[in-house]
C-alpha cells in the first residue's frame, strides 16, 4: 500500500457529488479498485444516493444534499474505503470475452500507417500487435456505451495528435497512450483512426442498450472490407461474438 500513500482521496464534485479517486494515473489495480468500490456503493444502497459511476481510476456518487448532508456521507465513504484493500479486489463478475471483426487500415481507417510509424512498427507488426492483444474495458464513458480499452504494449505509448480529426465514424477503433477507444457516435478526435468495425455500442431501441460492460475483454480480429460490409447488413453486432470469461 505504500505506493498509494496519497490515495485514495475523497473530494466533493459539484454541489451534489463525491469523487473517490484511487490514483492520478491509470494502473490496473486502481482501475479494479474503482470498479469494486462502485459495486460496493451500489450494494450499500445508502439513502439519498441517486447515481454512481466510474472513470478510469475513480468512482463517483451523486446524491441529494437535502436528504443526506455532505459530512455524514463523507464519513460513510471514509468508513467503507478503510474497510478493505480496494486495490486487491477482484474484477466484476459476469465478464465476457468479445471477438469484434475489424478492418485495419484501408480507406476505412486511414491512420494505421501513421500510428505504426509513431509506435516504431511496420504496418504488419502493428496489426499483429493490436489484434493479438486481449484488451480490457477499463471504463465506459464520454459517449453512450463507449469503451476505453487497455492496456497495449509499451510501444503504443504514443501521444494524441495536436490537431483534431474532424470526424471519425461510429465503430471507429482509435489509438493513443497505450489505450484503444471504440467510438459509439460520429465524433471529432485527437486519437488516430487505425481500424473500423460494424459493432453498435449504443442501441437506444434495444432491451440492452449498452453492449459492453467494464471488465469485459476484447480481441479486435482482422477482417476485410468486403466481409465487414456483409456482416454489417442487419446485424447490430457487426459479426462480433461473445462468451463468458472465467
Amino acid at each position, binding site marked *: 500500500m505504500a505506493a498509494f500513500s496519497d490515495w485514495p482521496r475523497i473530494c*466533493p464534485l*459539484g454541489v451534489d457529488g463525491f469523487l473517490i479517486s484511487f*490514483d492520478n494515473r*491509470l494502473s490496473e489495480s486502481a482501475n479494479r479498485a474503482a470498479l469494486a468500490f*462502485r459495486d460496493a456503493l451500489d450494494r450499500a444502497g445508502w439513502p439519498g444516493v441517486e*447515481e454512481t459511476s466510474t472513470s478510469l481510476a475513480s468512482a463517483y456518487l451523486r446524491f441529494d444534499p437535502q436528504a443526506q448532508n455532505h459530512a455524514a456521507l463523507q464519513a460513510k465513504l471514509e468508513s467503507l474505503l478503510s474497510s478493505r484493500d480496494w486495490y486487491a479486489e477482484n474484477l466484476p463478475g459476469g465478464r465476457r470475452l468479445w471477438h469484434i471483426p475489424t478492418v485495419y487500415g484501408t480507406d476505412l481507417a486511414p491512420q494505421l500507417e501513421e500510428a505504426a510509424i509513431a509506435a516504431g512498427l511496420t504496418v504488419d507488426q502493428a496489426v499483429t500487435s493490436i489484434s493479438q492483444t486481449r484488451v480490457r474495458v477499463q471504463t*465506459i464513458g464520454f459517449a453512450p456505451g463507449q469503451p476505453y480499452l487497455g492496456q497495449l504494449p509499451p510501444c503504443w505509448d504514443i501521444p494524441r495528435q495536436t490537431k483534431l480529426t474532424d470526424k471519425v465514424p461510429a465503430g471507429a477503433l482509435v489509438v493513443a497512450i497505450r489505450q484503444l477507444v471504440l467510438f459509439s*457516435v460520429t465524433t471529432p478526435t485527437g486519437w488516430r483512426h487505425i481500424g473500423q468495425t460494424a459493432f453498435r455500442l*449504443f442501441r437506444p*431501441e434495444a432491451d440492452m442498450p449498452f453492449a459492453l460492460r467494464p471488465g469485459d475483454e476484447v480481441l479486435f480480429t482482422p477482417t476485410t472490407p468486403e466481409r465487414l460490409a456483409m456482416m454489417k447488413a442487419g446485424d447490430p453486432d457487426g459479426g462480433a461474438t461473445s462468451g463468458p470469461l472465467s
Partner: protein
Amino acid sequence: MTRALIVHRASPGLTLQDAGRPGYLGFGLSRGGAADRLALTEGAALLGQADTHATLEMVGTGGEFETTGDMRVALTGAPMRATIDGARVTWNASHLLPAGVRLSIGAAQSGNYGYLHVGGGINTPDVLGARSAHLAAGIGAPLQSGVRLPVGDDPIAKNFGFLLDADPRFDGGTVRVVPGPQTDLFDAAEVSRFATIAFRRDTRGNRMGVRMICDDPGFFSEAGLSVLSEIIVPGDIQITGDGTPFVLLGECQTTGGYPRIGSVLPCDLPRIAQARPGTGLRFRMVTLAEAVEAERREATRRKTLRNHLRPLIRDPHDIHDLLSYQLISGVTAGDDPESEGT
C-alpha cells in the same frame, strides 16, 4: 381521438425536451434534457401540472403551430415574439390555443432557449425513460416542419390565463462556482484572477456547453494537459488546451481530460445557457456550504412557484381579439379564469 400539436414550420434546432435521463452516467450517457431547467418548472407552474412533461425547446426563434383540439399552452424561457391568430400574446404566461388557430412564435428578444408547453404534455413514446432528444447521443432528432405530435390528456383544460414573473437570466451576469477535485491544480492566484475578470460568451456553444472568452491571458494549470480522464458533471468549467474556459451543459460528454477549475451551481446554469454570444458573464467562487444552501433555497422557491401566478391582465385591444376567437372555438366567457379570480 388523440389530440395533436401540428408543427407547420419548425425553426432549426427545435427539439422535444424534458428533465432528461438521469441514471445512465456509468454507461456514458449524460442526462441531457432542457437547456434551461428553470423554464421547465415555470411552464409546469403556469399549467398547474408536473414538471416531467415533454415540451418544445426553441433555439433563437420558434415556428408556427396549430392544434387539433382546444389546448392550453404556456410560453417560457427566452422571451420571443408570439401571436395567436395574429394577436400578440404575453410571454411567461399560459393561454388557450383554440383548435385550428395558428400560434406563431418569432425571434427571441433576449436569451437563446424558449419553450412551448402544452397542457397534458407532448406524449411521444419514451426512449430510456424520457422523451427528450439527446442530439450528441443520437437519441431523437430536431423536429421537422409538418410533424404532428401526440398530446396527453389534460384534466384541467379550463385553467389558463396566468402570468409568472420570469426569473431574470437572459442577459448574463454573475454565476456562482464551487471548487472541485481539480481546482487545486491551479495556483490560488489563477483561481482568484478567474473569479475577478469579465468574460464574454463566445460564438462557439450549444446544448453540450459554451466557450467563454476574455481580454486577459488564458488560464493554465500545473498539470497541463496530462490529466487523467475523469467524470464530468454539467456545470463543470473545463480549461481547454488554449487556456479558455468551457462551461459544460446538460448534453455534455460524461468524462473529460481537461483540468476543471470548478463547477457552476445548477441553479445558476440557466444564466449560462441563455447567454447569447458577446453577453458578459462573471464567475464568483463560493464555498460548498454556501452552494448547498443556495440550491436548497432555489429548490424551495421552484416548488412554490405556483403561489406567484397572477391573472393575465389584458388591454382592451387584446380582449377584442381574444373574444373573437373564443366565439369561433365555442368557449364561453364563463370559462375564463380571469373573471373567476376577481
